[in-house]
């Protein structure tokens, strides 16, 4: 079980801010593939992962990063703070 969080337009497309996901995905990319296969709204959110960023346990990471030991994954568009 892993907590998956969505922010900004990723949250809007998927339609929720957070969910618990039962997964055996080894990497972020595997998890994205699993989610994309679920429903159209996920496919819409993950259509172009080059437009997305991911954080593992609140640290920026790559889509190739392993999920072993990770409790929280967050997907969001590039940040626009400041």
């Amino acid at each position, binding site marked *: 079980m892993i907590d998956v*969080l969505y*922010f*900004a*337009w990723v*949250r809007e497309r998927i339609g929720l801010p957070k969910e618990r996901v039962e997964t055996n995905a080894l990497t972020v990319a595997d998890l994205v593939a699993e989610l994309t296969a679920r429903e159209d709204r996920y496919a819409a959110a993950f259509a172009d992962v080059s437009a997305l960023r991911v*954080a593992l346990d*609140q*640290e*920026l990471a790559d889509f190739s990063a392993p999920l072993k030991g990770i409790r929280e994954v*967050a997907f*969001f*568009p*590039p*940040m*626009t*703070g*400041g």
Partner: protein
Amino acid sequence: MPVRVQAEPFDFGKECAGFGQGGSSTGAVVAFLGRVRDDSGSLVRMEIEHYPGMTEKAIGAIAAEASRRWCLNDVLVVHRHGKLTPGEAIMMVATAARHRVAAFEAAEFLMDYLKSRAPFWKKEIAADGAAWVSAIAEDEQALDRW
């Protein structure tokens, strides 16, 4: 507290008045204020979403890195989230150092990293619709100089 993430407004003047004033080893203070612009003239409000938990951690790491690189006597970052109206203060950074070059560089470093590495997302709500602000390539490229 050198890092504050808050929904409440902050007072740029008061923050500047209270910043870096102790001691006499600080020769230079730089303060930056970011405000909600209304380029189109039709902006109703800006909404800023953030990632509680990660936000504080990310800004703290950026501020610590700036303090280390430029040997700052003091540093402050305040960033709001939630609903803001045109002209309102979004965020500020302040740096205190012995010399002006360090204070300026550290403040610009903080701004460049906060723009692209702190988990905030801006949405503009205008009279004719709402849109998420897009990250621009220039902001990402700005990190290359550090």
